[in-house]
């Protein structure tokens, strides 16, 4: 493909993804979902190219990165290229993955080009070997219940507060800390 058209399409993708993400940061659930879904396909393509020898790990690592993007979404600054921000998170998690597997070939693998992130989207999900539902069950009640009611059953914060006897701010904090704890559990188990 012609280099300028290629750059142009990367730029357009950056702009459309950023618009969805910024809207999500304001609390727009539909846009945020579209952002994560689209980002997921790009990340899957990126990881597939990176982890040719560990195809079984792709979906697990993808989920870990999406969770990290979500847990770190408050660190994005709107004047920063979204690609660079996402790529830094993906690279950090990928480096962590290589380190935990201590794969020497992985460490010599250079991951420097942020453009690669959006090169080839991949739409077919594989089976994740790690079961996040099971890990969620291990969380303490004050995190597990808010996540179950708000994030899985789709209840409002107010309804969840009523149901669990927690205050509304405790429900929000429970969701936030629970998802961070989930990321920490994944890290501990990989």
């Amino acid at each position, binding site marked *: 493909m012609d280099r300028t058209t290629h750059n142009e399409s990367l730029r357009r993708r950056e702009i459309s993804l950023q618009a969805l993400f910024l809207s999500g940061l304001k609390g727009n659930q*539909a846009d945020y979902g579209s952002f994560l*879904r689209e980002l997921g396909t790009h990340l899957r393509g990126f990881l597939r190219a990176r982890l040719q020898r560990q195809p079984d790990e792709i979906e697990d690592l993808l989920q870990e990165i999406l969770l990290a993007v979500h847990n770190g979404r408050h660190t*994005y600054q709107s004047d920063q290229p979204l690609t660079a921000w996402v790529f830094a998170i993906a690279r950090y998690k990928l480096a962590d993955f290589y380190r935990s597997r201590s794969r020497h070939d992985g460490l010599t693998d250079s991951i420097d080009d942020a453009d690669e992130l959006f090169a080839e989207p991949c739409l077919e999900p594989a089976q994740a070997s790690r079961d996040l539902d099971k890990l969620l069950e291990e969380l303490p009640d004050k995190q597990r219940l808010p996540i179950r009611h708000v994030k899985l059953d789709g209840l409002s914060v107010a309804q969840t507060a009523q149901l669990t006897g927690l205050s509304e701010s405790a429900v929000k904090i429970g969701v936030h800390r629970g998802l961070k704890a989930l990321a920490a559990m994944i890290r501990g188990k990989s």
Partner: protein
Amino acid sequence: MNTDDLVSMLARGVEPVDPKVIAKRFSLAILIGGVGALLVILLRFGVRPDLADVAATPIFWVKIAFPLSLMVGALLMVTRLARPGMSAGGGKLWVTLGVAAIWVGTLYGLAVAPADERVAMVLGTTWKVCAVSITLLSIPGFIAVFWALRGLAPTQPKLAGACGGLLASSLATLAYCLHCPEMAIPFWGIWYLLGMLVPTLVGAAMGTRWLRW
């Protein structure tokens, strides 16, 4: 849970994000570090009795300017390094200039001093306690800054930890200036710098362990 379900879960009921969250976390950390060090100075070390007089001399403000420039530099760097994909940025310049200036002053001060006074200039009367005091005064700020960083997403944990340690220790040094009687630039160039270096190195060493996410 498959990835589609995870995405749905993450998006469902997503709360708006406070765009000032980094500024707020670091403001709080600086407040805790500054007030903490100030309280220890007021309650344990004591403010130097001639502070009002000495504050009227320019050299006192030169002394303040040294840790202040390092603090500004460390703050600029650490708030950038708390975000994925950001380099340390222009804060390096403040730190480099601060250290370079104090070293020029140190070398010049020693060069023009009579040979038999040089050792006294470097050691002052408090060299044994200076670096240790600054390190101890850094502890409240160190804990607060690491708390701030742990809620963010540094992708270069060693560097972020070092900048966090420097932020805490430069704050501590600012407070220590209210107590410390030493007024020779070579003293600051060695012992103040050493006092700030220790928490910076501890921060770098602990960064890889404490700032994982």
